[in-house]
């Protein structure tokens, strides 16, 4: 009789769970308690001669506790790519460009799917999931209520349809219906948040107006990042928010709050301050959000440092007078504003910290980030003594788990690691990294850009300071699962290899360079080649170097636009010669001719030596001819050597002796 749904897939049967009769029912409490409270069973109590049978009470836990316990047995897999990608050698992103492309395409696919589900809700009514997954079901995005009423206005507000909401409000006012204060607050909040524009719907085609506005923005700010402009809109004069605000019969602090915060968010700073004056004149008291917004706007309304500080101090005093309690964001915005005040910042930031402590507000990572920047980068003198500050900060934060309380929290780790890198302090770098590994702190590393900054700086620090074995261990741990090193990072790695003379690892590094997509960076490849060709090594190392050199050559061959340079050609030739690959080396000489590059005399003499080892006199003659074709100054010496060391027949002898003379003859 039961529904005939069979589940195909992986079955794990757990057999035989024994329950006992008369057991206690599960308590409804949600916490996972480790209480070992025991309880006597009234009915089944048999007093044994030795001891009574006590049945312990069954422990209760919440729904995810077992899964969390099992998950705690698992650590990060160092070779695995991030979880959202397909784990396949074809489909995993190998370069940072691919990473970005794949994650963006996943997001866009998800958005497209969401769009389809939402626009065709009738096709997605069947709900298979048990327990119910609300985010997979269609959301209502279409308006249902059409008549002019407050409910319709509320609906539009909740669906974030800004222009429709404003229209509905105007209609309500015209028809004379009163709109409640609550709804008006929400409407003002909506308009100010989205700057009087409809938020961009995912996946919908852009309209004409949008493109015109883009054009405008582009003309106004030719240099700026246009993506940011696209998202950020400027507060227009007398837009709907202001109009509605002015029409309100009575305005309370919340309306002012919405407007002031909207103005600050969208760039109308002076207006925000004027509105604040207005608020004070109406003898209303502002709330903490208004103060936070105003403090963050201070650097844009005053230009000189002491004026800025005076304004901040004034705002803080007014906050005190109006008995508004500051919160974490207040202090963070003060510090952020102070960052722009260079020398003042150093004096006042300790005072800010003391205030925070006095009020019992725990500083967040953003606070520390502002302080570190102030003390290290904004002040004139920053020396190793200042590292003590970072040390103190890290000692205090050791072992703490953080949650994100301020949007600037994510900048802390990158800044801290930059400091460690600039001051070449490896121990502090390790301390910062151990802080990242505590609990869920990895979430505070931020988006992929911040993460790349952090790990890139960490890796550079390691390459500079650490022994090569440790460097390689970290390399295998974080590349490429957490970091796609940029060419500078790879150069640092090559330097580290060179310092500890582990040049035999160069071919594997070349493979990694290729898979990271840096094989088109000419300077990196040239540095690699020069390191390989600099010294003589043992036989099998030379073999591997030669194979690597051939690989480099084929990579260059695939890109016809890339220019060969003389040094890279000669390095490759030397490597091939050292590994006794004469034919291939000969091809290199042809390549010299094709690309119009001139080989050095030293190269040709080493060629000659190799020819002697393989006893090919014809080759030697060709070599001399080639040398003459390039008009090298060493031609006569080469000719002499050829005559001396090789057994030539007469024809060859005659050819060679021609070149024995001084090169003036060739002109």
């Amino acid at each position, binding site marked *: 009789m039961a529904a005939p749904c069979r*589940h195909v897939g992986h079955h794990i049967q757990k057999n035989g769970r024994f329950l006992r009769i008369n057991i206690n029912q599960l308590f409804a409490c949600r916490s996972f308690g480790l209480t070992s409270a025991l309880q006597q069973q009234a009915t089944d109590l048999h007093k044994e001669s030795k001891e009574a049978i006590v049945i312990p009470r069954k422990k209760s836990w919440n729904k995810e506790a077992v899964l969390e316990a099992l998950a705690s047995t698992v650590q990060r*897999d160092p070779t695995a790519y991030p979880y959202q990608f397909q784990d396949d050698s074809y489909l995993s992103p190998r370069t940072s460009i691919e990473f970005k492309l794949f994650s963006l395409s996943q997001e866009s696919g998800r958005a497209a799917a969401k769009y389809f589900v939402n626009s065709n809700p009738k096709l997605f009514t069947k709900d298979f999931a048990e327990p119910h997954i609300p985010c997979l079901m269609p959301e209502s995005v279409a308006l249902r209520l059409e008549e002019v009423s407050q409910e319709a206005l509320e609906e539009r507000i909740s669906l974030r349809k800004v222009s429709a909401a404003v229209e509905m409000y105007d209609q309500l006012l015209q028809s004379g219906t009163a709109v409640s204060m609550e709804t008006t607050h929400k409407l003002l909040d909506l308009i100010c948040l989205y700057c009087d524009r409809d938020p961009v719907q995912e996946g919908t085609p852009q309209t004409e107006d949008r493109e015109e506005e883009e054009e405008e923005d582009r003309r106004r700010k030719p240099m700026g990042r246009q993506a940011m402009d696209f998202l950020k809109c400027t507060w227009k004069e007398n837009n709907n928010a202001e109009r509605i605000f002015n029409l309100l019969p009575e305005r309370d602090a919340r309306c002012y709050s919405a407007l002031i915060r909207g103005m600050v968010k969208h760039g109308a700073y002076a207006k925000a301050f004027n509105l604040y004056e207005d608020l004070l004149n109406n003898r209303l008291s502002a709330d903490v959000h208004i103060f936070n917004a105003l403090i963050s706007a201070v650097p844009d309304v005053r230009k000189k440092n002491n004026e800025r500080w005076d304004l901040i101090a004034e705002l803080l005093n007014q906050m005190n007078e109006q008995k508004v309690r500051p919160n974490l964001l207040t202090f963070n915005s003060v510090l952020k504003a102070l960052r722009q005040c260079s020398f003042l910042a150093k004096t006042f930031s300790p005072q800010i910290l003391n205030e925070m402590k006095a009020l019992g507000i725990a500083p967040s990572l953003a606070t520390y980030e502002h302080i570190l920047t102030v003390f290290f980068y904004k002040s004139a003198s920053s020396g190793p003594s200042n590292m003590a500050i970072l040390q103190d900060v890290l000692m205090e934060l050791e072992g703490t788990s953080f949650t994100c309380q301020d949007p600037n929290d994510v900048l802390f780790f990158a800044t801290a690691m930059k400091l460690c890198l600039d001051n070449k302090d490896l121990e502090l770098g390790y301390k910062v990294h151990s802080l990242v590994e505590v609990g869920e702190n990895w979430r505070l590393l931020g988006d992929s850009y911040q993460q790349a900054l952090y790990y890139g700086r960490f890796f550079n620090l390691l390459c500079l300071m650490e022994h090569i074995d440790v460097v390689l261990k970290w390399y295998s741990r974080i590349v490429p699962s957490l970091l796609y090193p940029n060419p500078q990072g790879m150069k640092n790695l090559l330097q580290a290899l060179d310092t500890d003379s582990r040049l035999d690892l160069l071919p594997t590094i070349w493979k990694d360079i290729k898979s990271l997509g840096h094989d088109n960076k000419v300077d990196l490849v040239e540095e690699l080649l020069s390191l390989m060709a600099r010294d003589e090594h043992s036989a099998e190392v030379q073999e591997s170097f030669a194979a690597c050199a051939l690989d480099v050559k084929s990579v260059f061959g*695939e890109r016809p636009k890339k220019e060969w340079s003389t040094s890279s050609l000669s390095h490759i030739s030397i490597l091939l010669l050292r590994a006794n690959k004469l034919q291939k080396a000969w091809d290199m000489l042809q390549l010299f001719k094709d690309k119009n590059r001139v080989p050095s005399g030293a190269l040709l003499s080493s060629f000659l030596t190799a020819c002697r080892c393989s006893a090919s006199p014809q080759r030697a003659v060709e070599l001399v001819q080639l040398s003459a074709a390039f008009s090298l100054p060493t031609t006569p010496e080469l000719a002499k050597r050829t005559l001396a060391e090789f057994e030539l027949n007469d024809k060859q002898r005659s050819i060679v002796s021609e070149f024995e003379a001084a090169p003036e003859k060739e002109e």
Partner: protein
Amino acid sequence: MASFGSKVFLSLGRTNVSGVGFKKTGNRATYATALTVNSSSTNKARGGKGSTGRRPKRGPGEPRTEKMALDQDWTSVYPAATPFRANAVPLPLRMGYPVKRGIPPEKKGNLELIKIPNFLHLTPAAIRKHCEALKPFCTEWPSALDTDAKCDELFPVKIQSTDYVSAGPSIRNPSARVVHMKVKLSSLNLDDHARKKMLKLVGDRYCKDSDILTIKTESCPLRQQNYDYAMYLLTVLYHESWKIEPWEAEKTRADMEEYSWEDSTSQKNILDTLLRINATGEGEEAEVREQLLGREEVLEYKDSVETLKNEEPSESNMLRYKEAVRKVLKV
């Protein structure tokens, strides 16, 4: 149901695009090697087209098994039940039918390895870790219950139910509602009549060898309901078997569970035979029968007949019967 079925094959649909494309051809030899041939030929073709400026086709990266350390933590690589991924399992596996005197195909793009369930996530190390992690959820076994006998004595009713875990859109499984209740009849307080009645009522559910009554309830949709129903059934059976209905007096010899020699045809026959043998005519018939019944041989005969009828016929039983007959008939 078809539409439902298609959603569940997420494990097959997501992995190894390289191998999946060939599963429909039915040509088993091709899926491992054909792919590499394809890619190299396209690369060569690209070499000629290089002048048009097209980037060469993105080849496969090296599988991440190359980078895995020898002492890595395997439980982190396969933490949960996932399909087989050739680039994540560093074992040189081969699976499949060797066609034309070849060898089984390698693991790269091998659909046979993906189809079967694997237990790579349940290595002994993983199980040890899981057990350690789950220990805080458990309570201690009561120390007084150290033998099975004591458990049976104090907790005679045993309930067994099964939980199912599978990968799919829903966590519910209708087979999880089944409840088996087992109880030993010797632990219930039943007299002879009650026991016989109980056995008649339950029929097949009783196992004679182990004296266990098993009640399996699956008619209700929820496990709790099935458990309550099983308990109710036990209670009702117990009370009903103690009641004596008036119509039970009509129990005939054919309804009896065991053979009893009193008033049976065998008794009648042997008594008639004996009477005829000793046709002395002294005393009442009834008295003579009584006397005959009291005799030792007759009693032995009675025992042997009852043994034969009630138990399995065996050599010893037959021999005993033979002896008893000979004794009774003085042959």
